[in-house]
């Protein structure tokens, strides 16, 4: 038993899942712009209106999260009663999307906040709890909505403020994954928990530059702790660094001796095409969630990808912190997914 414990904790930042922990099913709900993007075929539900049939954008975001989770339960052929725990988070104050949705679903909740890193924060923790036996089945989920995020972090869209090209477009969507022991679906093998990094970037319209060092830090810890290299994976993605942060991350890792060129992509670049007017690319919890739980899981299940490392990046600012002139601390969490059915 003692040896197994040691194997679970590889190092301070990296966990190895010793049981047959799998991502047994997943589901994604998105808004109209994502539905027009290149990954539309991998999304379970596409709303053709930003309100998703609701009165407010906040209600719309809850609808997306609820759609993702209920679709997930249908796809897995189970009910909420079969699930011990939801681990979820979003970008709104006090995690209201998550909390209100969990009340409807009546499944015990662990609400988590890691800004846009929430997708992998929740997945890593769900895998750990399932691996340790505290839950038989757990759902990891998160959501973001373009208009609620703009209202929360920048300016309400009605205000019509200009944005520079380094700004990003918050993905409207929600993704959910079902974590359990055995069955089918890719195995969750490793998780690397990030440290908060702050390189002094203060511009909330340039999150890519702010988050890149956090992604690099987590990648380095992951490679060093596991003895793996970029070549160990078919695909490595970051969550939402987009066209500003992506090349910075690649360059910084190359300086550290890790050549990512052949395997590296960014969910914020994958979820839209450049002609969709999204500035530098996608961002938000849903950026990594819809790409991972949509496209990547499909490719893993079909055997087109064998080993994938998803590193979700989060900018831990609040409107108060940046208005008071604080720089933007950032974090990144990585989870390794392997194999197919």
């Amino acid at each position, binding site marked *: 038993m003692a040896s197994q414990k040691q194997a679970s904790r590889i190092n301070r930042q990296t966990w190895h899942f010793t049981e047959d922990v799998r991502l047994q099913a997943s589901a994604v709900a998105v808004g109209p712009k994502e539905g027009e993007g290149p990954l539309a075929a991998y999304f379970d539900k596409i709303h053709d209106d930003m309100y998703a049939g609701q009165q407010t954008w906040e209600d719309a975001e809850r609808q997306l999260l609820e759609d993702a989770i209920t679709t997930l339960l249908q796809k897995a052929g189970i009910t909420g009663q079969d699930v011990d725990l939801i681990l979820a988070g979003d970008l709104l104050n006090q995690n209201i999307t998550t909390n209100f949705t969990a009340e409807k679903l009546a499944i015990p909740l662990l609400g988590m906040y890691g800004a846009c890193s929430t997708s992998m924060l929740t997945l890593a923790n769900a895998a750990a709890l399932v691996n340790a036996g505290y839950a038989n089945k757990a759902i990891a989920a998160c959501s973001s909505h373009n208009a609620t995020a703009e209202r929360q972090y920048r300016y309400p869209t009605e205000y019509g*403020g*200009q944005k520079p090209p380094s700004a990003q477009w918050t993905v409207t969507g929600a993704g959910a994954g079902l974590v359990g022991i055995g069955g089918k679906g890719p195995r969750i093998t490793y998780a690397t928990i990030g440290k908060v990094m702050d390189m002094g970037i203060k511009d909330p319209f340039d999150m890519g530059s702010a988050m890149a060092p956090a992604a690099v830090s987590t990648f380095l810890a992951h490679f060093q702790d596991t003895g793996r290299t970029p070549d160990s994976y078919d695909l490595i993605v970051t969550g939402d660094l987009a066209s500003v942060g992506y090349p910075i991350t690649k360059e910084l890792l190359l300086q550290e001796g890790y050549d990512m060129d052949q395997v590296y992509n960014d969910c914020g670049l994958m979820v839209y095409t450049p002609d969709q007017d999204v500035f530098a690319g996608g961002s938000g919890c849903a950026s990594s969630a819809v790409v991972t739980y949509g496209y990547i899981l499909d490719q893993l299940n079909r055997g087109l990808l064998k080993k994938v490392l998803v590193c979700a990046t989060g900018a831990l600012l609040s409107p108060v912190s940046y208005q008071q002139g604080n720089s933007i601390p950032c974090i990144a969490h990585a989870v390794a997914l392997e194999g197919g059915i």
Partner: protein
Amino acid sequence: MEYVIAFIVGGLICVIGQLLLDVGKLTPAHVMSTLVVAGVVLDFLGVYDKFIDFAGAGATVPITSFGHSLYHGAIGEAEQHGLIGVATGIFEVTSAGISAAIAFGFFASLIFKPKG
């Protein structure tokens, strides 16, 4: 000719605003306040009225003229009622503009719904 001057001068004020946004890295709210205060200062220096004579709508339409109107209202009342007039007069000239903004904002919100 006065149309051309108004067009160019108004545009130049907007260029200053855009430079404050892009180069100065100011927030939209800071850009707006900076331009309003610039209008107040220019009026204090006695420049803004001459500027209006020269550029017409090019000087009255941009937000700098809001500062000019604030200053005019405050000074006008101050001359009649002393220091308290600064407080009571500051919105004297601008109140029509502020009321219009509130009224039109209200009516627009009744009819339209933001699309995101």
